[in-house]
């Protein structure tokens, strides 16, 4: 498990650097926090008081390690606007963001995989060209634009779904889904295009391999060749891209939560940024980055489980 140990170490180093970098950005960059919080009319005494309150008068690295110490025990500090513990604020809003991203991912994969499989059955054929053009169109549509178009279409014109607002699961599954479907579509309808293109391209490469010819020579019907022989060895880039694209999805979620007024982590972060809520921003950005790093770490593990060649190299004792 030599490899695993090294990966965990690498993960720890990356997490350390990520939180440190967040801390530096929030603290070094120009703009005095105390002035920002109290406004231009505050007296120097008030400003100094607040700085002491926030611990801004101590050296930066000392503050960072203080923060890191408490962060490791689950304490991300308190928002100096609302006084709410940051960890609690994130925990409250996380389910909404997670639901949004999982639904978006399900939509994306649910469209991408069948579309790619149908496309490669006849490369250059009608379905292939149609799905490629559709994908191209969606690829050129930013999520904020798609969100508005969906609102215009389904809420303003057709009046089928609510334009904004969130209904928690406690108000019933349908009400919850009704409020989440447009946000999830705004993300998923863009995400699938990337996944489809990746999978299609890898499938086409795999289908040129000799082992596919051999599978055909065994007398396997085309759909079995595609599903049993081609799909699995073609899905490794897809898995990597799904992991990497979660970053884009998080960014998209920030926007979509804002458009649809969903109480998620992204909106919490935006609020923090607009209010210059230093501790809240520091905590939220670190949390998001750490989550993203962890997901990619897991994807990397999954890779080793799915690809026997990688497993062989990595888990040889």
């Amino acid at each position, binding site marked *: 498990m030599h490899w695993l140990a090294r990966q965990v170490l690498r993960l720890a180093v990356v997490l350390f650097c990520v939180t440190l970098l967040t801390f530096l950005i929030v603290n070094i960059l120009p703009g005095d926090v105390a002035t920002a919080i109290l406004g231009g009319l505050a007296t120097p005494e008030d400003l100094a008081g607040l700085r002491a309150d926030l611990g801004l008068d101590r050296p930066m690295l000392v503050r960072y390690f203080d923060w890191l110490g408490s962060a490791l025990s689950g304490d991300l500090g308190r928002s100096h606007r609302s006084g709410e513990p940051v960890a609690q604020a994130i925990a409250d809003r996380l389910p909404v963001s997670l639901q949004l991203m999982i639904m978006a991912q399900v939509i994306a994969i649910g469209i991408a995989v069948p579309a790619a499989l149908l496309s490669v059955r*006849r*490369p250059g054929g009608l379905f292939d060209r149609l799905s490629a053009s559709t994908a191209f169109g969606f690829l050129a549509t930013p999520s904020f634009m798609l969100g508005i178009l969906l609102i215009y279409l389904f809420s303003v014109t057709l009046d089928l779904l609510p334009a904004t607002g969130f209904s928690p699961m406690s108000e019933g599954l349908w009400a919850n889904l009704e409020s989440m479907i447009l946000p999830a579509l705004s993300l998923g309808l863009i995400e699938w295009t990337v996944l489809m293109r990746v999978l299609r391209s890898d499938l086409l490469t795999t*289908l040129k*391999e*000799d*082992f596919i*010819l*051999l*599978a*055909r*020579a*065994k*007398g*396997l*019907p085309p759909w079995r060749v595609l599903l*049993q*022989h081609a799909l*699995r*060895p073609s899905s490794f880039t897809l898995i990597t891209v799904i992991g990497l694209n979660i970053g884009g999805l998080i960014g998209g979620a920030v926007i979509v939560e804002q458009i649809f007024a969903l109480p998620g982590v992204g909106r919490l972060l935006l609020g923090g940024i607009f209010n210059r809520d230093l501790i809240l921003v520091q905590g939220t950005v670190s949390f998001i980055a750490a989550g993203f790093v962890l997901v990619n770490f897991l994807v990397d593990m999954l890779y080793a489980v*799915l*690809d*026997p*060649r990688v497993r*062989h190299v990595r888990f040889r004792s």
Partner: protein
Amino acid sequence: MSGAVSGAVSGGPLLSVRDARVGFGTVRGLLRAVDGVSFDLEAGRTLGIVGESGSGKSVLVRSLIGLVGSGSGAIVGGEVRLDGQDVRGLSAKNFRQLLGRDIGIVFQDPMTSLNPVMKIGRQIGEGLRLNRGLNATAAARRAVELLVEVGIPEPERRASQYPHELSGGMRQRVAIAIAIACEPKLLIADEPTTALDVTVQRQILDLLQREQRQRGMAMILITHDLGVAAGRADDIMVMYAGRAVEMAATREIFRGPRMPYTEALLRSLPRLSDPTHTRLSAIPGRPPDLARRGTGCSFAPRCTYRSERCEAEEPVLSREGGRGFACFHPLNASAGTSA
């Protein structure tokens, strides 16, 4: 004897190919990869198809069994009969059945011809389940037996491994096990040892030959190595620029080639029996561009015997005493008179 390639033998050949053609549409026009090749192959015999890269030998054989075609933009023509049955006329389903039951294939590189993410036992058993109706347990048992037969030690353990865990020679043995699993009548070996070392090549060729004899299969052995063909084939077909230029029993080809290309190729080979620094008789020039072929014999520009006729007119494969050659100025005239 040379009956296997002369055609029209009583009882009928196992495989009969007439005027096979494969063309690819390219930016520069139609590329005739295979241009009107005909041959017969009888049960139990080995036909060596010899040619350089681009001679069309692999494309020819793959087109016969439908592995070139849909999707690749290839245009395939000609008639193929296996056991008297018109293969090209079969429905897709019946054709797949024929392919799975009656034809086995071994490709050049066992690294790429085995599925990297599927266990070896399953890859062998797959064809058995599909074409011989075995259930999973029976197929797995048979897969282990086949591994024993192709000379793989610890067959049970190997059956549950993935291809990358085996050496190159072992992988090719697995590929042979897959090819012979359904007791095919025809075994196609497409450069089966080109990716292997000489000492391993020897073992693999021995194995192929043993299986072919034991099972009475017909075999097509595609190779660029005249040495490999000399030791293993009953008959040889030499291909150049998409055409069959000479066909004969192996000994006749090596003793008295009729087509100047065959002769030139044989003479250009360095041999262990020659002393060091023996000057090789190189063939000048290089093979023609298949998309821009002019009139006349494709080999004419490189041929020492060429005449005006060779550049103006295309020689057809003529048959003479059981052997065929496509040349206006055949060599070794004592074996027959020129056409």
